[in-house]
């Protein structure tokens, strides 16, 4: 049996989903052509049923790709839990009534029930149930209130199969229901409202955005460096290094296994950025360089997401983003890209047109470095001075603007206008933020660690086979002539296709100058996405557009790298 969780965007479906499927479920993105939904299982009367978290939709007549997925999914479901935002009953009922017209049993979860009290909204649940002809259960996703009730009443879900001849008729019916079911009482202006008013004001909003941005940078650095200085570096230096040294000694400090596992010893010591063994650099890069910053980034992102700040940023950035052929909402996938480009490019689905998705995905791939790459850039280039890190970021920002302007001019079609709901500010419990952080961080470890280890292994084997000398000699003219980089860097640049963090790590032993580091890391960030992003790009854009995007990336990277070589 397949149960679909459906509802308007941002009504708490995903929170309800994790409540229903419990902590033991690993919610994962489902691969295939109809990606974008998450599934898990629930035990219902001794039977394992599948629960699917469908992307939010306002209507069953889809207007965006995410809504298309939702409409398509409906055909495969055996039962629908329609999640309704109780504080927005009228608008939410539109989808509910559309669902009731379909030949699938429905049960309604009246979510965010607790919020109705704060907002002075009174809903007569029994009466609503009578009107709809299906069970209606008040729930509070974040606390778990009403969830058991919801599960118990799933078998009562029915198919009233009412039909409405037109949208207007449906709205009239909704008006009737609202009149008889809901009453509003006066509520006081709270400080939440004040904060919302400030964010909506054009000047106040801009000042708030700058404050949020500054706080974001500060908190990410504070947490990231804190974890490195007080947790991971001590662990590696005091526990892991002595262990590895013993192992190295046992292996005779040289030879095949020593080189693969421990790597080259630098002055008889392990250098975690240069040794390049599986157990040294292969473990150190993902766990001690990247993980601290990933944790810090996703902690801050999780708060911004759950509080509801990002849509407000989208409104603020709308005018600017129209210049590059996008609208404000594109800021959300772009910000996700600073964590990892893979979910970012998947998130471009919230954009309406193919043209916007192409522009957004290309810009993200070119100019938005993921957290893993950033951590390495800050670690390695930062050793030469933060001004060099600033040059890398400045070059990326300039590329984003210029490539965006060109794409807006060159790609056919027009950009639709912004239209979006702005959720109220909410302050979720820390537990919810913690769980989300854990999901993302553990996801990173599970997905990235094997690829990093694989990349390090490949590097070692190719070195032993002397394949790199061959490649290096062929590509030498471009690298040295255009970019001013020694020919050995080609190896790192090629490995960038597997993992960019490992690639930057490979630059460490080459003894590059600050200028060469700036050029090579900027080039790495721009030229080509890593293999995971590449696969997602191909899936989301199609092979042809993906090749186009890749061509743009390579051209842009060569031009920017060449310019940096001339100017710096």
């Amino acid at each position, binding site marked *: 049996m397949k149960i679909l969780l459906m509802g308007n965007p941002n009504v708490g479906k995903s929170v309800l989903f994790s409540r229903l499927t419990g902590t033991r479920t690993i919610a994962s993105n489902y691969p295939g052509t109809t990606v974008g939904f998450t599934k898990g299982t629930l035990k219902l009367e001794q039977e394992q049923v599948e629960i699917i978290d469908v992307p939010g939709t*306002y*209507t069953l*007549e889809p*207007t965006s790709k995410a809504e298309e997925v939702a409409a398509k999914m409906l055909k495969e479901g055996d039962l629908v839990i329609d999640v309704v935002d109780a*504080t*927005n009953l*009228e*608008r939410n009922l*539109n989808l509910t009534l559309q669902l009731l017209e379909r030949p699938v049993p429905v049960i309604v979860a009246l979510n965010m029930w607790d919020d109705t009290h704060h*907002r002075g*909204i009174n809903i007569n649940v029994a009466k609503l149930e009578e009107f709809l002809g299906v069970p209606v259960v008040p729930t509070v996703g974040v606390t778990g209130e009403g969830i058991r009730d919801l599960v118990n009443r799933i078998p009562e879900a029915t198919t009233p199969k009412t039909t409405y001849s037109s*949208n207007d008729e449906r*709205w009239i019916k909704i008006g009737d229901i609202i009149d008889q079911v809901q009453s509003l009482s006066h509520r006081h202006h709270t400080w939440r409202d004040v904060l*919302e*008013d400030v964010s*909506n*004001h*054009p000047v106040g*909003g801009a000042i708030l955005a700058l404050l949020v941005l500054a706080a974001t940078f500060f908190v990410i650095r504070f947490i990231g460096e804190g974890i490195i200085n007080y947790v991971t570096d001590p662990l590696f230096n005091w526990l892991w290094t002595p262990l590895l040294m013993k192992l190295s000694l046992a292996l005779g400090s040289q030879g095949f296994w020593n080189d693969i596992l421990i790597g080259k010893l630098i002055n008889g010591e392990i250098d975690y950025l240069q040794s390049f063994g599986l157990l040294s650099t292969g473990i150190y890069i993902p766990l001690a360089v990247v993980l601290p910053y990933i944790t810090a980034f996703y902690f801050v992102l999780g708060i911004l997401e759950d509080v509801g700040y990002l*849509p407000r940023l*989208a*409104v*603020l950035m*709308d*005018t600017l983003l129209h210049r590059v052929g996008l*609208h*404000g909402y594109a800021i959300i996938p772009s910000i996700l890209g600073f964590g990892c480009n893979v979910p970012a490019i998947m998130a471009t689905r919230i954009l309406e047109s193919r043209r916007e998705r192409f522009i957004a995905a290309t810009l993200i791939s070119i100019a938005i470095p993921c957290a893993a790459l950033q951590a390495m850039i800050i670690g390695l280039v930062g050793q030469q001075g933060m001004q060099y890190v600033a040059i890398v970021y400045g070059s990326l920002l300039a590329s984003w603007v210029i490539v965006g302007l060109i794409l807006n001019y060159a790609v056919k079609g027009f950009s639709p*206008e*912004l*239209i*979006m*709901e*702005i*959720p*109220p500010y909410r302050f979720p419990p820390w537990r919810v933020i913690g769980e989300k952080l854990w999901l993302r961080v553990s996801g990173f470890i599970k997905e990235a660690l094997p690829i990093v280890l694989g990349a390090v292994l490949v590097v070692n084997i190719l070195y032993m086979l002397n394949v790199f000398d061959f490649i290096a000699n062929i590509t030498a003219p471009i690298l040295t002539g255009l970019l001013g980089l020694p020919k050995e860097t080609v190896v790192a640049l090629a490995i960038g296709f597997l993992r960019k963090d490992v690639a930057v790590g490979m630059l460490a032993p080459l003894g590059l100058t600050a200028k060469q580091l700036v050029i090579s890391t900027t080039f790495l960030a721009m030229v080509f996405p890593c293999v995971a992003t590449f696969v997602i790009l191909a899936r989301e854009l199609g092979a042809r557009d993906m090749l186009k995007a890749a061509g743009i990336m390579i051209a842009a990277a060569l031009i920017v790298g060449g310019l940096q070589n001339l100017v710096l």
Partner: protein
Amino acid sequence: MSQKIQLTLGQMAAGQTGTVIQILGGRGLAQRLEAIGIRAGKKITKISSMLFRGPVTLRVDQTQAAIGFGMANKILVEIDTST
């Protein structure tokens, strides 16, 4: 009797409230606006508009939303004038 003033949402001042009279656009636009709760007969309050013909934020029922400047000029509103 109160005076009847009709403005588009784009022309309204921040803080003004009125009743949506008509959506001056195609069916596609009407549908998308309807999805976030904007349709003829609804009370609508303009909250603010961003500079340089940026998006307009508004409130309908319990929902806050933002729509592009062009769309805002296609929503015809009869302003509430307190007498």
